[in-house]
């Protein structure tokens, strides 16, 4: 490993430790809560009665084998599932105490408050600046000074500013995969969301970029709740305060991350953690 990489890893490790103690729950303030959420794709019952709470200042990891319903659950939280034909979400999803799983809820306003970052970095085919201002413009912000300020704030927030400040008008596609993913996080941060949902945000990235994203999550979680779906057990144990284990459409076990990884109660979780299946 090169010297540079070494330094980077050290800085990542230290800043994370400085800000947060991972694996220990620290907050009582619930921002988002689900009560008996069920999801169906046509006749297929993909998720059974899932009730979870997401706390301010905490990262919650959703783990489990492929097809266990964790991504389905994540996509219910900002009702992205509604965009899929034939998908039905039942149960209550309470954002700041208000049920949002209703016919009258304005999803498009709601998604300002509940942001989402995807598996594959998906910046728009636009400049770096326009990628950030895309959403604020939709929500009615036209003033150039305010937009410029938002661009800088969001990019600083996503630890990307120093790398791109001289090429804001260049195409976002000129960035590396890890930078693109941080741009997508910056784009989400511009809306100052209370909740950010991460759907396997690092599975398309190299190890260094992965650590940068994990570090970033630790920095931005302070005044919001973060929910992350991940296949990477180590990532879940590194970044999260609480963990929920899903298996075949059921939320099997939920608890503080330390407990989940060190003293799992459910046999299926234990088998999963010890690599009996994946």
């Amino acid at each position: 490993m090169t010297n540079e990489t070494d330094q980077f890893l050290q800085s990542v490790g230290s800043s994370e430790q400085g800000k947060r103690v991972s694996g220990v729950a620290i907050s009582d303030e619930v921002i988002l809560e689900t009560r008996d959420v069920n999801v169906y794709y046509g006749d297929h019952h993909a998720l059974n009665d899932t009730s979870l709470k997401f706390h301010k200042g905490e990262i919650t990891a959703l783990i489990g084998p492929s097809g266990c319903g964790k991504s389905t659950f994540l996509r219910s939280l900002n009702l992205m599932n509604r965009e899929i034909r034939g998908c039905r979400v039942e149960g209550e999803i309470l954002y700041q105490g208000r049920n949002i799983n209703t016919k009258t809820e304005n999803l498009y306003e709601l998604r300002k408050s509940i942001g989402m970052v995807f598996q594959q970095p998906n910046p728009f085919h636009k400049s770096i600046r326009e990628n950030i201002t895309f959403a604020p413009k939709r929500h009615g912000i036209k003033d150039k000074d305010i937009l410029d300020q938002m661009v800088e704030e969001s990019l600083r927030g996503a630890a990307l500013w120093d790398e791109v400040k001289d090429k804001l008008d260049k195409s976002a596609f000129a960035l590396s995969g890890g930078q693109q993913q941080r741009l997508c996080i910056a784009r989400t941060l511009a809306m100052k969301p209370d909740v950010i949902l991460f759907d396997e945000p690092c599975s398309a990235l190299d190890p260094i970029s992965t650590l940068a994203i994990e570090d970033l999550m630790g920095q931005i979680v302070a005044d919001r709740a973060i929910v992350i779906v991940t296949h990477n057990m180590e990532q879940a144990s590194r970044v999260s305060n609480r963990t929920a284990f899903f298996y075949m459409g059921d939320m099997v076990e939920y608890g503080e991350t330390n407990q989940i990884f060190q003293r799992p109660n459910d046999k299926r979780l234990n088998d999963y953690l010890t690599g009996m299946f994946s």
Partner: protein
Amino acid sequence: MAKQMPKRNLEKVGLSVTGACVALVTLVVVALIFMVAQRGLSTFIKDGVNVAEFFTGTEWNLANTNEATGLPFTGALPLIVTSFAVTVISTIIAVPIAIGAAIFVVEIQPKFGQKYFQPLIELLVGIPSVVFGLIGFHVIVGAMRVIFNVDLGLGILPGSIVLALMILPTVTTLSIDALRAVPDGYRQGSLALGYTRWQTIWHVVLKSATPSLMTAVILGMTRAFGETLAVRMVIGGVEAMPEGLLDSASTITTTLTTSMAVYATGSVQNDVLWSLGLLLMGMSLIFIMIIHLIGAKGAKSRG
């Protein structure tokens, strides 16, 4: 099999057969361009027709001789104007419909699109242009007479409508491909930022598909510019500057078909028809170059 051919020989045969195909195609293309250029240019070099007069003159009359120059009237501007008019108007009619249909089948009802709409569109591609011309002559020209209360109903407008119908399948199919090629991540990203479905289609899907959509439009225009038969059936065939959209006119292509068998090879009149052919080739070359430029620019901005 009587005798197995040695492998090395077989390779040589393959090489020479495919190589010969390439040589043949190249030869045909080069010979074609050379021939059209040679005949087309001799109008100006050998026969002494003024190039500027050809492009800007407004009187086209091959049967009569201009007393002043001793040459037939070869002002091609009315034909050029008519050709561009039918091309542009038919594109303006066809493109919104094509893109609208593409949005519906890609973004709104993908299953319907794949199962019913695309086979239907493909059927439309296969209809011979004479059928379009026939429909145009009996239905569209008739409708023009009724709607606009004119005597003939022939001219640029019915020509453009017939052409619009003809290029519609091409432009629609290419637009569908263009929208399908937009990565799903863009749509998801946009929805997750609070854009509605329509805002996503408008600001993200169409925006990022613009280069491919432009290509679709220009390919449609190329086809409209070169189409002859169906246009000939509804445009009236009067080689004069059209004074309105319902005034009988004649495009470059229809003039070519009307006059090609009338004049002897080597006559000024025959040469000037080759000049029209050269002009058509030049235009299609320009269209193709634009498509390549768009493609190159798109590739560059994708990094």
